[in-house]
Structures are given as C-alpha cells and as structure tokens.
C-alpha cells in the first residue's frame, strides 16, 4: 500500500495532572499523536463534550494534524460512538494510549473498539515504521526487551510508555487552531449508568531518610551507588532459597516472627 493513502486516527483524551489535578493533554495520547505524525494523513479525534475544545487545543498546538471532537453526551458510551464513526469513515490505523487519565480509566477502550470493528489490536507499541506492504512495529516487552512485528493495516495500535516523548505544544499554534466538531454519534452507556465511582487510594510508600545537608552531599548521595550489604546466594535446594528469602523478609519486618 503506497504511503500517501494511509489514513490514521489518533484517539485523544484529556489528561489530569497526578499532583495538581489540572487538565492537560493526556500524556500517552500525546505520544500516540507523535507517532502518528509520520503515518500519512492523520486526524486527532476526541469523543466527548465540545466544551473541552479549548483544552484539546494543547494537542492542536503540536501542529501534527487537525483535532476534531466527536460530540457525545456525558451519559453516552464513547466506544459505541467511535465504533459508529469508524464504520462510516475508513481508517487504516487507529492509535490510542493505553489508559485514560480520568473517567473510568479501565484501559478497555481500544480492545472494545477492536472487538466491535473486528480489527487486530497491538499493544505496547513503541515504534512504528511504514513499509511497502504494511507496518513494521516495535513492541516493548518487560525489562527493555523489544519484539519486531509486521502488521497489515487496518489495525489498532496501543502506545507503550516507552514510545518517544511527545513534542512540545506551541502556544501560538494552539491558540490559532480551530477544533472541528462531528455530531450524531450518541449512544447511551448502559453499563456505566450503574457504576459507582469513588476516589482511588494511594498505596503507602516507604519514606527515605535524607541526611544530606548541602547540595554537594546530595549530589554524592545521588551519584554514588547506595547498595550496601546484601549477598549473592546460589541455593542448592529450593528449601535453602526459600529460607534465605524468608530471613530477609523477617529482617525487613515484612513478615512477622511469631
């Protein structure tokens, strides 16, 4: 398939800063948009309220592609809306982040969309390259491992954290941008109507004691390896290994000794 004929959609959502809670461009979606920049004709698509148009300009300010809002009601199901849209509008590639920063944040959207459109879904994508016949995709596996895939569009790609950083939003370009509007895709979300939302709780974290008084001390603390003690054990039997682990857990106070 020649390069110019590919059409790409990037699904964009509004993010929420983890500390201040302020609205921002969702980080992963921005990375997805960044990858889309080199994949033919692209459109940034957000299923939601048109009131968020100003906030979405932070995507438009990346000057990658126009941004459009698929207008739906608060109670509507974005998957249904998107699926209806993509049934009408052909798209070779749909790029998404892996999880929204607000709302249900279930990470299910790309899979549900894939199911409804009957498209293959590839997750953990950190690099995409266009070839004569399709796409060369690099998938990020745990511990820095990478897997090369070759995929024939149409498909849905879910971005991995390790995808290249998104470019900066340019204020001027964002202000000048006009966010498009698409209507007529409302479909009630029957599942969500019964959901009960409550704030997530943070797992408590162990505190680190910082003794450094001067910048130089802190510099030292940050650069000099902190590893102290510890030993490499090569257990002969599984019993021996398990005992060593248990001992350490007891020392760290993570397992109570009776």
């Amino acid at each position: 398939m020649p390069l110019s004929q590919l059409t790409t959609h990037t699904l964009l959502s509004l993010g929420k800063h983890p500390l201040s809670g302020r609205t921002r461009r969702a980080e992963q979606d921005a990375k997805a948009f960044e990858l889309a920049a080199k994949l033919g004709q692209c459109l940034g698509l957000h299923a939601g309220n048109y009131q968020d148009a100003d906030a979405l300009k932070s995507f438009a300010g990346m000057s990658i592609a126009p941004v459009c809002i698929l207008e739906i009601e608060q109670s509507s199901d974005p998957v249904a809306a998107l699926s209806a849209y993509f049934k009408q509008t052909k798209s070779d590639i749909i790029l998404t982040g892996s999880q929204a920063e607000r709302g249900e944040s279930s990470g299910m959207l790309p899979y549900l969309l894939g199911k409804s459109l009957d498209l293959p879904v590839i997750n953990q994508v950190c690099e995409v390259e266009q070839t004569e016949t399709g796409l060369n995709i690099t998938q990020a596996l745990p511990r820095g491992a990478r897997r090369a895939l070759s995929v024939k569009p149409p498909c849905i790609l879910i971005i991995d954290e390790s995808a290249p950083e998104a470019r900066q939003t340019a204020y001027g370009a964002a202000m000048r941008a006009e966010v498009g509007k698409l209507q007529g895709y409302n479909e009630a979300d029957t599942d969500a109507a019964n959901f009960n939302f409550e704030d997530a709780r943070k797992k408590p974290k162990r505190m680190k004691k910082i003794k450094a008084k001067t910048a130089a001390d802190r510099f030292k603390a940050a650069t000099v390896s902190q590893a102290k003690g510890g030993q490499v054990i090569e257990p002969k039997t599984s019993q021996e290994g398990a005992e060593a682990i248990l001992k350490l857990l007891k020392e760290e106070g993570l397992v109570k000794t009776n």
Partner: protein
Amino acid sequence: MLNSLLPSLLPFLVVLTLSLWVIGAIRRVNMWRQGQDNPVAFFPAIKAIIPRYLNDLHHVVERDKYISNTHVATAGGFVLSMVLIILVYVFGLAPEILGKLLLASLAMMFVGACFVAKRRINPPSRLSKGPWMRLPKSLISFSLSFFILTLPASGVISADAFGWVLVVILSAFSFMGLTEMLFGMTWGGPMKHAFAGALHLGFHPRQDRFNGGRSTGLKALDLNRPMVDKDAKLGVEMPADFKWNQLLGFDACVQCGRCESMCPAFAAGQPLNPKKVIQDIVIGMSHAQDATTEANYYGSPYPENQGVEVKDHKGDMHQPIVNGLIEPETLWSCTTCRACVEECPMFIEHVDAIVDMRRFLTLEKGQTPGQGTQVIDNLIATDNPNGYNPTHRMNWAADQNLPLMKDVKRTQVLLWMGDAAFDMRGQRTLRAVVKLLRSANVEFAVLGNEEKDSGDLARRLGDEATFQRLANANIATLRQYHFDMIVTADPHSFHVIGNEYGELGGQYKVLHHTTFMNELSESGRLHLKDDLRGKVTYHDPCYLGRYNGEFEAPRSLLKSMGADFVEMERSNFRSRCCGGGGAAPITDIPGEKRIPDMRIDDANATGAEIVAVACPQCALMLEGVVTPRPEIKDIAELLVEQLVIQDAAESNKQTPAEVH
C-alpha cells in the same frame, strides 16, 4: 583649463559625497522602518541625542579612558570639521577666519585618529578587524589632506604654493576620507555607527534607560494577537519582526566587543557571542542593501559552533533568523545576565533581542530545548518548575509556625518565599530570614501554598503565556491582602514582581532581603556581632545588582559584621554571572568550561574563605562546584551566625513595630 577646474574640484567632491550621504540616509531609515512600529515622539528624541551622548554614552565609554578621550577628539574634530568644510568649501564663507578654525579642528581630529591607529597596532581580540583596520587610515587621510589643502585656502600660506599635481593627489586623499566618512556612514561602512548610533540614542526602545534610569524589566507580549490576526506571530522570527528602533540599535553596533569580553557564556566557550548575535541580525537585515556586508564580519566567532562558519550565516529581512543566521544553541546559552547590555557603549539591548527570538521558538515552534519543555509543563501543571505538589510549598516551614496571609489578611511585611521553598538549600536561607525577621520583631506573614512561581523562569524561556498566567494569578492573590511591602530572598522574584508585574497591574514595594536587613541593622533593630571570621568576598547576583542597582546593602551588612571583606576583580556592575540565570541551567548548552567554575576561580583569586551570596540560584550554582572551594553562604545565614539574641522571650514575641 585644469587650473580653472581645480578650485571647484574639492567643493564638487564634498557636494557629491554629501548627496550620497543623504541618499544612503534615506535608504537606511527606510530599512529600519521595515521593522514593527514602536512610536517615539520625534522632536523630543532628536533633542535628547546630544545630552544623552554627553551624559549617558560618555559615562559608559569612559570606562575605557583611552578610547573615550580618543573618541572625543576624533568625533568632535570630525563633526566640527565637516560643518566648517561645508561652510568654507561649498559656501565659500569667510575662508580666512573659518579656515583657521577648520585647521584647528582638523588637527584635533588628526591627533584622535593617531590614537585610533595606535589602538589598532595590536588590537585586543574583542575588536573586529577587516574594514575596521582601514578606519584609522581613512581618518588620518581625511584630516591630513584637508589640513594641507586648507593651508592655502585659509591664507596661512600663499594661494598658489602647491602645484596642480599635489592638489590632485591631496584631493584624492580627501575624497578617500570623504568616502569613508560620509558615504560609508549611511551605506554600510564602519562609520555607520555614528549615524545609527546618534539616532538610536534619541529613539531608543527603552526611553527610561537614560538620565540615570534603569529600565530592565522585559516588556509584555500581547498574547491575544494570534486570535485577532491569524498572521500575527508571537516573538521574533525574522529581522523585520523586531521593532524598528531595535533594528536601528543593532545597526549602531561599533563592533567594539565590550559585550563579548563581559559575556560569561562566551568565556565558558558556549556558542554565544553577543556581538556576533547583533552582527548576524545586521547581516540579515542589510545584506541586500550594503554590498559590503555579505559575510562581512571580522570579529570573534561563536565558540564551539559545531562546524558552522561565519560565512555560512545567511539571511534576509524576511527570512527566519534561527538556523539561517543564528543557531538556536546560541540563543539558549544566554544567562540574561545583562553584562553585555551594561557594557555596550551604543546602548544596544541584547537581552531583549535574545528573549524576543526565544519567544518565537517557544510560543510558535514549541522548540524549547533541554529540560525546558518539562519545566514549562511543570509550571503549567504545578506552578513550580520541578513539578512538586503545589500543596507542599509550605512543608518546609512545618516547624516554623509562620503566620499566613490567608489568616492575618493584613501585615507589614509579606515574605515572598519563592521556589527556594521546595529546595533544601534554599530552605536553609529561608529559615535564616525568618529568624532575622523574628529577632528584629518585624510583623510579617507568608502566602503559603497560595504563592506561585513568580514566572521569571517561564518568561526567560520565552513562554510569555505561562509567565502572564502565573503573574496574573499572583497579582490576584496579592490583591486580597494588605501589606506595606514584599521582602524576598530571591532576586529573580524581586525583579519580576517589582519591575515586570507593574505592566500587568501589580504595583508593589518590593525589597530584597539584604536591603531590608540593612535597614533593620542601621536602625538598630538587628543586633550583630562584628567578629565575623575568615576572609569574605561577595558575589553580586545579576538580578539584584545590574538589574536593580543594589550593590551597597549586602556590602554594608558584611562590613557591619566586621568581615575581612575583599572584592573580586569582577564585581558590582561588572560582576560575572554564576551561570544560573535566564534558564541557562535548564537549557544546559555545553561549553568548554562551566560558568560557576569560572566564578569560583574569581573567588579563589581573592583568597576568600567564604563567598557571600544573596540569591538561592547563586547558592546552588556555586555550591555545585567541586571542593575544595570557599564556603558558600547566603548573607542571611551569615547574619544569623552573627546575631546577638538579646532576650529570647522578647525575640519570640510578635510585636509589630515600625520600619522605615
């Protein structure tokens, strides 16, 4: 035949070059006018030129006594001679009397020209060569040939003392001189500086810089322009985007390189040379006009400029500057320390120009380099550059029991904490300041978590939008409360709140902590022991010293603590930056050396054991230099060490008292 033509030869040459001067002048003015509007009242500007030359400009030139005397003789001699030449040769007015006067002024110019020539025998590297090496010859040939030709004209010697051959030769020399002095002045030779420079003094974009004024705050950008006019851009992309009188200023550069010799980034081998920045813009705007300016730069290049040759810099009035004329690394190396501006005899505003171009890169291109993008994102999301939780700003003071403006509503001193509140080094200074305020029984309070970054960093990174958001938010918070003054230990906040919030509607009395503490000490409310041990030197923060003229208070405090005080070679208005301003540590452009290392070398040269600082950024930068090095202490910390606590109970009481 020849004999009858000869007497009219010189007047003809004078009129010819004068006409060319006029045509060139019109062309130059039209070139500057391609810049953006920036109205300056015409007649007051013209009227201001001479007083500003005599006071302000001469004051700067005088730092180099040699050249100031030389300049007075040469320039004064030339202007006077030119007027007299027109009167005597063109209008034939009283050649006997005016001719003798002309001889005197030419002699003065000749003496000056000889000193110019002497400076050029072995010129320091900061001076440009090329046509500038020709200038003394032109000056001498102008003054000498006119002098000899005027001898008979003024009746000192007989009218036909010279044969026609000699007259023709002398006329040729005067023509050479006239060409340099008049034609070159408006068509792009070294003498251009006189024409553009004089007008720049009058039409300077910062009118309040003169007469002892200090105009150092950046000017606000109209952020709504792109919404109103889709073609309008934020910041400067091409030479024509500068204000017309900025272009005029760049054209006035005499390539003296004083800026270069003061620039910390240049000295550190980073790819920045303020003189070259100005010349690059000049090459861009005038190359179509001046046949001679194409790659016409004979000064020091940018250090470390990865393979980019001077002659590769090409541009146009309407072509993008960055990556044509100037590499982005050049713009991002600047610490905005203003050492160049302070030193420039032509009153050129390098920092304004650099920030204007940064604004375009950040606001229109989204190309803030290094950690800049991250810092801007953090400022947008958390109101502090490091992305700390904005509700943790007051955590440092958990044990301080500080009164909050939110509770007290009204106080005498509002202590502005700055982002030092998030930094352990800065917190030590803040604690010291609090202790001092308490010991002097000053009624004060803080904004606590309501405080936001002052916007300094965002603004220097070119992100005017974030600056204005932060500034407006801070102004709105401050508006709810009553206080007599703001006191801060951060010169950047001090400068921004004091000098840059005004344009957005926030007018405050802001004092730096050293100024305030000095007042307290002088009025006897702060009791200090005068036995400070060890040799102490003081590093002037750029944003306190050069930006705001406060050199005295910190020194006076050190002296009242009995410090064995030594000055570094570069101190006061010539102080060398610590490298921490203008977001330079964030953009982090590599060089051969680090600026803070050089500053510590300056301090080591004095043998000081303590470097007193007055800025959290300076403290961080200088303390980041590897040991052994002098100890870095904020003046507030030194004051606390020297504090005489008279009565513990007394000092803990929060009785309000008057401060003046």
